[in-house]
């Protein structure tokens, strides 16, 4: 299922445009199994669009994506989910009307075998299956330390906890590839520490490959094994944190000190 060099996902020459606006042009990089790959860049660089392309929400108009060794044509989101790709969103896409536990249980849906009739009767098999999945969800709840709010409707939770619940829902699917879109946005220092710890634990304990969009450079440098840098929809650097930190193009575009006012509308 993997190609020989341990590459889980390969993106080649992907280009995406909305009407007249180019979001991505000729982006190529790969993600190796088991690594934490950060995608960084200024606002509007196309990072979220890249994740959306990977999990099938947007269809690129050129380029190729290879996942687990097979070229995937256009995967619709639920097919991506079935193939083991899970993700979180910048603006939190939780089901606000449901509790924490229910939200995480929805992440288990792909692993559930039943149908509505069995549900309606709620006899032996349905009950046992529900309990088994509940056990998995509870392990995740324990891992993320959100036991206290398991029965609270997520709409009422503070922002930081909502982000954790969203991570829990993604984890519940036992994904091979986890896409995290700014998981630390809006968090204070302690919350970021907790979240970083969770991300590292997920990667180390479960071996989940992680692709991570993040703006906090400290977090990025500490967590990731390799980094891709995007700017204006193009890749401008690709390498280890050390390499990227000292790359002149990256310093000019994003990290850097003085640069002229060419940001324009995308800044």
């Amino acid at each position: 299922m993997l190609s020989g060099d341990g590459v889980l996902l390969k993106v080649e020459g992907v280009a995406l445009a909305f009407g007249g606006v180019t979001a991505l042009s000729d982006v190529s990089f790969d993600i190796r199994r088991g690594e934490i790959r950060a995608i960084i860049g200024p606002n509007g660089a196309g990072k979220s669009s890249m994740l959306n392309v990977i999990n099938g929400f947007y269809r690129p108009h050129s380029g190729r994506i290879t996942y687990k060794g097979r070229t995937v044509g256009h995967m619709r989101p639920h097919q991506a989910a079935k193939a083991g790709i899970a993700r979180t969103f910048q603006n939190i896409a939780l089901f606000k009307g449901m509790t924490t536990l229910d939200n995480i249980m929805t992440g288990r849906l792909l692993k559930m075998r039943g149908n509505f009739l069995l549900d309606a009767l709620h006899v032996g098999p349905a009950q046992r299956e529900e309990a088994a999945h509940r056990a998995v969800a509870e392990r995740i709840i324990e891992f993320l330390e959100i036991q206290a709010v398991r029965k609270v409707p997520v709409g009422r939770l503070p922002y930081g906890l909502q982000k954790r619940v969203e991570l829990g829902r993604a984890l519940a699917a036992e994904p091979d590839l986890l896409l995290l879109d700014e998981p630390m946005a809006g968090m204070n220092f302690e919350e970021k520490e907790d979240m970083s710890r969770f991300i590292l634990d997920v990667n180390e304990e479960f071996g989940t490959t992680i692709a991570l969009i993040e703006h906090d450079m400290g977090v990025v440098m500490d967590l990731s094994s390799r980094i891709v840098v995007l700017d204006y929809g193009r890749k401008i650097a690709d390498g280890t944190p050390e390499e990227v930190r000292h790359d002149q193009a990256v310093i000019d575009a994003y990290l850097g000190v003085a640069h002229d006012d060419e940001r324009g509308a995308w800044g």
Partner: protein
Amino acid sequence: MLYREVGQFATSYAADQAIFPIRQDRFGMLVLVLVAYLAVPLVANEYWLSTIFVPFFVFSLAALGLNILTGYAGLLSLGTGGFMAVGAFTAYKLATAFPGINIVLVFVAAGIVTALVGLLFGIPSLRIKGFYLAVATLAAQFFLIWLFVRIAWFQNYSPSGVITAPPRAVFGHFFVTGPEARAAYKYWFTLTFAAVLALAAKNMVRGATGRKWMAIRDMDIAAEIIGIRPLSTKLLAFAVSSFYIGIAGALWAFIYTASVEASAFDIDRSFQILFMIIIGGLGSILGSFLGAAFIVLLPIFLNNLPNQLGLHVGVALVTNLQDMIYGALIVFFLIAEPNGLAALWRAGKEKLRLWPFPH
């Protein structure tokens, strides 16, 4: 002090997921069931049994159906009346074409046919969302009623246009429809349908099926991304909902009004059921019952209260007041408590847990 959960811990996930995890609730439910089956028929008179309880159970079924579609799956439908008509007329055709078949099977079959029709009208729901879907269901409503009025085949070519439901008995002897039907039998019959189907509904909504529906309701884009297939989930909601509504329609025609008329299922009926679930509580099984009870009892209350107070009010005034109260209540509940009477009930239980202490 009566309603404390002290000492009651769920020791298995199955126990925690039970419908009534708290012992007092289980006891209360048992008492309710016993009262409903044994005490009420003994105590209540025919008027109450036939004209209050029977429509209450039938409306509860319809409200359950619509709540599944609109409250849980978030698909607004204004076609409830039309689907009730499908159930009623299908039951009629089946009952008259196959007189030997047990009436329970006839109703279930009518429900299944309605489910298929609901499936058909639900197909646009992938492309059409939210409020526009409501307009598509209006198409269903007006078309279906027209169909049953115009196509004489549905009325078995009756010359007068008035069709009565044929007499049928359960267990050979106990007539639930037709002139020999006893009020108590009608009561038990509709009660059982309502109870069994409510249990099935509760099981569905607290399991994976319900979670899929609620995910689609809350954010269907995110639902798709975690692997839920939107079209099949929505179609399932239409099918199950229509099943319930179809049976409600058949029961309405055969057991309550004893006649099968399309005009009983017009757009006002659709609005009426919608009001039940808004007032009772969207996305709540209990709410469906509470809303149905409210709508059934309000006109009676309005009719009788002035008499009790010694005032004389005309029928027209009562109807107008009713409309005004409905309208005002809808707005009130949407603003103040969108989860309806069911939420008020839960809040009341919370208070009861603390009683007699204030906090």
